[in-house]
């Protein structure tokens, strides 16, 4: 089933741990450059907090703009981790193995970045303790009988996202324990006389006494499967709840739709898996992991993405059809703006083309799925399209919200501050991924070794059979 020659365990260790704790020169250059972009975004956010949100392009009635678009986008990206790790682990897809770790870590970082967005977007970030009440020991006004408003989707949102973040971090850490143990042993001092280095101490702490005995392996596998199963409802609920931020808004006609929850969840998987495929191609390129991230893996991701994209397209068409089916004048006005009026019609065409028609056309032929350049192009195209999708949902709906003709009709044009902060979030996620690649293997060692063992075959007479049979 799997392609390529079998790789000995020693070689796996050597190649996959090569990036850890000794980095090439370009690594620091890249980190510093990305860090500068993040710093620029932070200063832009600081400027915005200091001056007021007037420095953004938002106005009445477009009260939500780039920040919320970006928030939904990063929440969407975060759905890749669970999709690839939990769902594919439970469905025993062998080709998931090299992709899981990168996807989970991308999940954690994109969730953290996503949660920054609504905080930056509020008018008074220094009062956020009233909102993010889940912070332990926060000076919340319980004593005065003041509580958060649990009817608000904006309270469901942090609850769901923080649950997801907590479970994703657990998921990553549980999967990392055996790999941390390998790193602990490799950083150990050569003789017992030397005092252990700080790195060794940290890895010792993270490995949590892992010795690799059968009981520990059993517990680790049980924990992985349990977390996979438990995280699934969270996975579905997070983006559903994010979509209810829009679905619950009665006054914005094009948002007030019940189809948003499945539509957003499938869209999130679409953009997330594409992002992971792109990240894997990049990792393969920069770290030279040709033996691990093989064409068959990217091919399998491409085939999965065809299904996801088509499911997403179904919901997209349904959402539009339901909008027309209602024949509500206000909703039709928003549709008119989205589909017929410049510049939204152009964005709409770009969005549908880049999210569905271009990438699916590129994923269909096997030859293209095995070409990394074409796959990268398709995956980037999906993410451009999915970002535009959220933008096209959020802004025209608000812009055309009012029924009073005398209300100000304003066109939203994002300011430089918003662009900088958006750019900063992309730089932040890339920088964090690079930094993590330096301290933890982005391809799970033990998972690859397990795959290698599972593919070992023995020849008995004329037939070749797998040497190991997995019972579960």
């Amino acid at each position: 089933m799997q392609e390529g020659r079998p790789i000995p365990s020693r070689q796996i260790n050597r190649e996959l741990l090569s990036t850890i704790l000794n980095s090439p020169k370009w690594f620091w250059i890249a980190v510093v450059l990305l860090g500068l972009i993040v710093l620029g975004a932070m200063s832009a956010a600081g400027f915005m907090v200091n001056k007021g949100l007037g420095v953004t392009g938002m106005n009445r009635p477009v009260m939500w703009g780039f920040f919320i678009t970006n928030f939904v986008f990063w929440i969407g990206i975060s759905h890749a981790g669970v999709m690839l790790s939990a769902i594919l682990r439970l469905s025993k897809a062998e080709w998931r193995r090299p992709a899981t770790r990168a996807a989970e870590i991308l999940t954690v970082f994109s969730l953290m970045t996503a949660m920054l967005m609504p905080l930056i977007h509020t008018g008074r970030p220094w009062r956020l303790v009233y909102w993010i009440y889940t912070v332990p020991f926060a000076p919340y006004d319980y004593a005065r009988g003041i509580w958060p408003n649990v009817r608000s989707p904006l309270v469901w949102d942090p609850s769901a996202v923080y649950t997801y973040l907590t479970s994703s971090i657990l998921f990553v850490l549980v999967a990392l324990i055996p790999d941390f143990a390998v790193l602990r042993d490799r950083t150990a001092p050569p003789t017992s006389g030397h005092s252990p280095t700080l790195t060794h101490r940290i890895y010792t702490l993270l490995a949590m006494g892992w010795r690799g005995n059968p009981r520990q392996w059993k517990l680790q596998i049980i924990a992985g499967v349990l977390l996979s199963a438990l995280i699934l409802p969270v996975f579905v609920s997070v983006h559903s709840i994010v979509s209810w931020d829009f679905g619950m808004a009665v006054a914005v006609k094009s948002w007030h739709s019940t189809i948003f929850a499945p539509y957003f969840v499938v869209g999130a998987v679409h953009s997330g898996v594409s992002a992971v495929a792109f990240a894997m191609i990049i990792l393969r390129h920069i770290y030279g992991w040709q033996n691990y991230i093989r064409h068959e893996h990217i091919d399998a991701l491409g085939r999965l993405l065809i299904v996801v994209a088509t499911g997403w397209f179904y919901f997209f068409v349904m959402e539009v059809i339901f909008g027309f089916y209602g024949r509500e004048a206000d909703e039709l006005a928003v549709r008119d703006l989205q589909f017929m009026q410049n510049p939204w019609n152009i964005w709409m065409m770009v969005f549908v083309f880049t999210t569905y028609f271009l990438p699916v056309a590129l994923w269909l032929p096997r030859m293209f799925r095995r070409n990394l350049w074409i796959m990268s192009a398709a995956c980037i195209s999906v993410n451009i399209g999915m970002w535009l999708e959220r933008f096209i949902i959020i802004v025209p709906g608000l812009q055309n919200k009012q029924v009073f003709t005398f209300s100000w009709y304003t066109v939203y044009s994002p300011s430089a501050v918003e662009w900088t902060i958006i750019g900063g979030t992309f730089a932040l996620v890339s920088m964090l991924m690079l930094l993590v690649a330096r301290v933890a293997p982005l391809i799970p060692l033990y998972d690859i070794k397990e795959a290698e063992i599972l593919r070992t075959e023995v020849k008995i007479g004329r037939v070749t059979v797998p040497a190991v049979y997995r019972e579960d």
Partner: protein
Amino acid sequence: MVTKRIDHKWGMVVDLDRCTGCQACVVACQAENNLPINTKDSFQQARAYEWIRIERYWEGEFPNVKARFIPIMCQHCENAPCEPVCPVYATYHNDEGMNVQVYNRCVGTRYCANNCPYQVRFFNWWEPTWPERMRNQLNPDVTIRSRGIMERCSFCVQRIRRGEITVERRGVEPLTGERIPDVDGPDGRYLNYQRMKDGNFLPACAQACPTNALKFGEQTDPTGPVYQYFQKANEQYDKVHHGEYIDESKTRVYRLLEEMGTKPNVIYLKKVDQFPVNESSH
């Protein structure tokens, strides 16, 4: 002495037949509620503050045209869409039929503004500033809002509270300063329409309106100016909700965007047009 709690339910009636579009209410509101001055720049940014605004529509075609005016302020909906979406309870409904905004709690998510179908919520995009000579003009009863929070018409809650303190707690007749006897009923310590008018406890817009197009009072007080209209409106509301037919040409009372089910505490009275624009005459 424990003062008796009197349950009010405030409401406003906007008589479009009387409205001349003079914008006195807009100016009065601006002065009463410490609104920053709307400069040309703030209008160009679409970030001007008008807690009450006069919308102007043209009816008919030239030369046979008529100007129509409709003042729109926060409708203080009973089923307000802005209230359930606020994560921090910065906006909530009090038991007097008013939609209350707590500036201190607002974090500025702007979700309420997205969810308001009447477009009456205003966000402080910038730190509000006044010219130095205007500093002493600010109303000490009203909070000066900082940047990053939401605000909107409060039915001049500071005036109503002052009226309640003067009449109901202290028992002082606002105009004459006489003691009001502590008896039950409308003669006792009760903030009725006359006392509100005497003590300038009406909202600034209602007080400033030269044609009395804006009427403010208690919905349940038969001596007040709004009682009959609210009776009529509630009757219509119940009828519509029981599937009965309302002949709209026979009634003047309506609420804005009634089909959304927000049930505002502001009622509009249709214009009575003696000489309607004849659409087919041109």
